[in-house]
């Protein structure tokens, strides 16, 4: 099986999850993980625990890209248009991007999506993706 495209961003369990951190002092979440400081200006906390983020969220917006992105996006011989979504996580109160998978072409703002881990566009590595909840 391919390895994750980046270390420490997500798990590859049967029920995968994004890996972030949570400030022990104020409860602010961070993704990608902050390990040294909390971004809340009212907090000087430096204890940041690793946590998994909610694996379901709602669509804030999304797009279908019909042109290949330049490197470092993996370049493939036959380009396939790809979707990218901005997804709101209720508990963490944050938006996290991800590529889209599944039947997403009729997605609306507010629709529910869930996290999956799938091969990247070139099949060489694994990345997280958002998939509409049927």
């Amino acid at each position: 099986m391919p390895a994750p495209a980046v270390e420490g961003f997500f798990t590859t369990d049967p029920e995968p999850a994004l890996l972030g951190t949570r400030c022990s002092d104020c409860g602010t979440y961070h993704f990608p993980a902050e390990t040294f400081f909390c971004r809340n200006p009212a907090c000087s906390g430096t204890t940041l625990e690793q946590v998994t983020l909610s694996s379901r969220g709602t669509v804030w917006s999304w797009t279908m890209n019909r042109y290949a992105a330049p490197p470092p996006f993996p370049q493939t011989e036959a380009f396939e248009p790809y979707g990218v979504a901005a997804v709101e996580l209720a508990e963490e109160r944050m938006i996290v991007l991800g590529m889209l998978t599944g039947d997403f072409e009729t997605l609306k703002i507010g629709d529910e999506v869930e996290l999956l881990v799938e091969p990247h566009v070139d099949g060489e590595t694994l990345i997280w993706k958002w998939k509409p909840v049927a």
Partner: protein
Amino acid sequence: MSKDVAVLGAGMHPWGKWGRNFVEYGVHAARAALADAGVDWQDVQFIAGGETVRNGYAGYVAGSSIAQALGWSGARVATAYAACASGASAIDIARARILAGLCDVALVVGADTTPKGFLAPSGGTRTQDPDWLRFFLLGATNPTYFAFYARRRMELYGSTEKDWAAVKIKNARHGLSNPNARYRKEVTEEEILASAMVSEPLRLLNICTTSDGGAAVLLTSLEYARKKGISDPVKVSAVSTVTPRFPKTVIDLPDIATDSAAAAAPPELTFRDSIAAAAYEEADLGPEDLDLAEVYDLSTALELDWYENIGLCKEGEAERLIRDGDTTLGGRIPVNPSGGLACFGEAVPAQAIAQVCEVTWQLQGRAQGRQVEDANVGLTINQGLFGHGSSVILTK
């Protein structure tokens, strides 16, 4: 103490895809601004450059690269980097030195030579650099983010492709007779709606290109201007270079996630709203005082967002402004009389300075073929990657 400084000169190198060294554009623009002001380069006490990251070391030290090309003169020098806000940062540094009494005459220059196609991150593998990560993991190009905002306007406020086409048609007309614009050609709704889909729902003609270009302004103390016999110069009355406030809850490029609002409530104003608010506060003016605005139309739909961010209308009402012609030349509050990025394409470190050049010429009544009548107050606005506000208010 007055917080104003005078804009004695403005100059540009025409935008295009010339493929020459960025320093040439910078020198051309600088000499034009100096000639416009009637000031000799060797009388300039401070030069600030906007950094370009695409032109090697000379671009990282743009201020001194351009100073060397103009001829070493012993002037103080600085280079500012704030992505699309670099020009405003350079203006802010120059203004601060003048207001602090450290100098009377400052030259601000930005110039860029851009590659073809999407702006891409520099090479290497950098898993801690969000700009690298967003391309590597997500293929999240700049238009990806513009598309997010456009789709929200569509679903939340009923924005249509025709509204966005109207923005493009307006800006194309505004730029027709602007000698510094790269594209000087009318465009029809049919052409726009038939152009290739790039990032749904945005088509090619909704998205600005990248360009080569250079822009410069010569800033002085009001006293220096008076001594030169100019008692009523165009003045910089505010420069807003604010950062966002935590938690920033709108996704901005190059981020792959926003701040979390789990522990702290989001601020009252969004980041883009706060950029304009800080400029208005500093100038002690409001949106009702504006006669024109130059906003960063990276996409046509984004121009509509800016109408709301700078207070021309309430959230969700920008479509009405474009439909009613309010922001067209001759309308209530013309936006992008220069033709905007639609006619220029983006030359990153020069663009915020180019906006200031346009407003300066408008307030001087010298914007031939695109003049806003009785222009006394103008605002420029844009936003740089990684949390850089950029707004300048100019008054007469």
